[in-house]
């Protein structure tokens, strides 16, 4: 019995080690390629976004796969991280001059802000079920995007100025720094992000999500997913654990947002990067990678980000191909008939192999 337990523990540890190992191995390969000049500039530019998408997918999987609630507003939380983190970095540019330290605090603050907003949104929203929850999270994501688009923020010697009208109404003196410019977005962040920090953040995300899943709280969250009424009957506080999963997921998305913001020169909150489109894109990663499968989320995020980039040569046809591939994969992976057909093929193959083996043995 003791042996069996040990075996199981190692099986679990093995799985998590494979996940961490996979990330670290890819990191090392990429670093070697970069230093030996074997990596194209296009690919180099994709490294940090890949980390961003992977973190987003893993953190959304906490809500969708582990908690079992459909969220279509995940990008909204990263939007909060983007703006809080970027504003912090711009303001602190001269105060904290060590870029790693400044970025560390920016990430912490971005995660905290997104986590708090996630918590506040979660209180009313998590009472809803299924598709209703989905539409409300989508609504919140759009609201966050809209609100961010009317914010004007600047800084001069008198401190911070804030308006929802335009830059002029801030009434700042000459030589002031314009931080947030409404629909023109935010610019002037120090480029503190790099691939190493991105991978580190991904590893931290994995650490938090995997360890949470295998703890008492994680089991409570999964129990709620599997059967809410039964979970309640054994004394599990439904609201507490739903909020816990939702706000941790939001905080991680916020941290990812900070990473994203410090990798580009201008961020605007548009539909394509922080609206429902992005939320849905991340959801696609989660579903294709396997609902509840953390490693799958990372792999799907990386492949589905790279494939359209690889197809750039096909120009306008690339997204068409992408959509066809997406539909095809969904049908193949999820349609009961396709699953049956696949099982049948595998059985046939095995049978064939066994036959060959017996024939060989007969020889």
């Amino acid at each position, binding site marked *: 019995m003791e042996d069996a337990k040990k075996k199981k523990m190692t099986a679990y540890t093995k799985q998590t080690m494979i996940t961490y190992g996979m990330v670290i191995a890819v990191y090392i390969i990429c670093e070697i390629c970069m230093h030996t000049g074997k990596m194209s500039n296009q690919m180099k530019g994709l490294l940090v976004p890949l980390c961003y998408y992977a973190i987003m997918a893993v953190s959304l999987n906490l809500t969708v796969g582990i908690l079992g609630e459909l969220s279509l507003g995940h990008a909204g939380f990263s939007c909060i991280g983007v703006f809080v983190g970027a504003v912090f970095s711009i303001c602190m540019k001269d105060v904290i001059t060590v870029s790693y330290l400044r970025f560390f605090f920016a990430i912490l603050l971005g995660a905290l802000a997104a986590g708090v907003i996630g918590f506040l949104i979660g209180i009313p929203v998590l009472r809803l079920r299924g598709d209703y929850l989905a*539409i409300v999270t989508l609504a919140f994501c759009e609201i966050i995007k809209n609100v961010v688009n009317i914010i004007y923020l600047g800084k001069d010697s008198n401190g911070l100025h804030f308006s929802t009208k335009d830059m002029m109404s801030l009434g700042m003196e000459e030589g002031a720094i314009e931080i947030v410019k409404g629909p023109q977005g935010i610019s002037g962040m120090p480029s503190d992000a790099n691939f190493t920090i991105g991978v580190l953040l991904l590893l931290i995300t994995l650490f938090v999500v995997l360890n949470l899943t295998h703890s008492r709280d994680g089991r409570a969250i999964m129990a709620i997913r599997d059967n809410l009424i039964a979970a309640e009957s054994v004394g599990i506080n439904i609201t507490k654990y739903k909020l816990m999963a939702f706000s941790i997921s939001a905080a991680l998305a916020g941290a990812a947002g900070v990473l994203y913001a410090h990798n580009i020169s201008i961020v605007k909150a548009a539909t394509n990067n922080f609206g429902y489109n992005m939320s849905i894109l991340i959801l696609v990663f989660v*579903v294709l990678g396997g609902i509840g499968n953390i490693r799958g989320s990372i792999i799907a995020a990386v492949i589905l980000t790279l494939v359209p980039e690889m197809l750039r040569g096909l120009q306008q046809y690339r997204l068409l191909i992408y959509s066809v591939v997406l539909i095809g994969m969904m049908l193949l992976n999820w*349609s009961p008939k396709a699953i049956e057909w696949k099982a049948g093929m595998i059985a046939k193959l095995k049978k064939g192999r066994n036959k060959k083996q017996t024939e060989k043995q007969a020889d």
Partner: protein
Amino acid sequence: MSFITYVISGISLGSVYAIIALGYSMVYGIAKMLNFAHGDVIMVGGFVVYSLTSSMGMPPIVAVVCSMIFCTILGVAIERIAYRPLRNAASSLAVLITAIGISYFLQNIALIIYGSSPKIFSSVITIPPLKLADGALTISGETVVTIAACIVIMVGLTLFINKTKAGQAMLAVSEDRGAASLMGINVNGTIALTFAIGSALAAVAGVLLCSAYPSLSPYTGAMPGIKAFVAAVFGGIGSIPGALIGGILLGLIEALSKAYISFQLSDAIVFAALIVVLLVRPTGILGRQIQEKV
């Protein structure tokens, strides 16, 4: 007077939302899926009319009918090819993601054919504007037609569902698919019919939308699609009067907040209203409350 103008434009916009929301709501009620591609069928409907009228010079009314037929076939084909195989999939997310794939597909086909720059859509509605109160209040022909179309569609659909066998079959399938099939109802056929009606309505909505806001691009359908979905949930998804109420309310909120509160925040206000409604009534204004049996 300006207030009344805003209200009328709100009702007009709301009528378009209501027509789109109907499609969403019917499909949700019967197939139990969020058809994210519904908004893009609106865009397809708009482009068909655009092509037929501006490049082939067809009379608008013929073009609209052709567009409806085209979208009906498209809707049924999408259901048959992409959604039906996943109807009994282990996770309801599978069909949702497939619908998103269809949405990308339609957008990108339109992008390849028509390019990304918006096309100017010349209104297909030629009736003169209505002048009321000695010309102080003008209601455009588009508004009149839109509101009239919405009323006709609502009444027609209500009659169809309540008075015809096919309509009753729809109700039965939405209530309990398994039981309906045991009673000899052709479930596949009924769901296909629902998609056909929903898509034909989307084509109508597309024409009305483009006539009121005369610009057409591959992404035209996305936001109205989402808003109509919000309207459907707002009114109580699965309910025809709910779609009407939700659509009109949404149009009014949008038009009035654009006029009186903030142009940029109007979408945020619409979504905030949805959240408030759902917090008070978790299944929408006319939605049925469901309690799980222990």
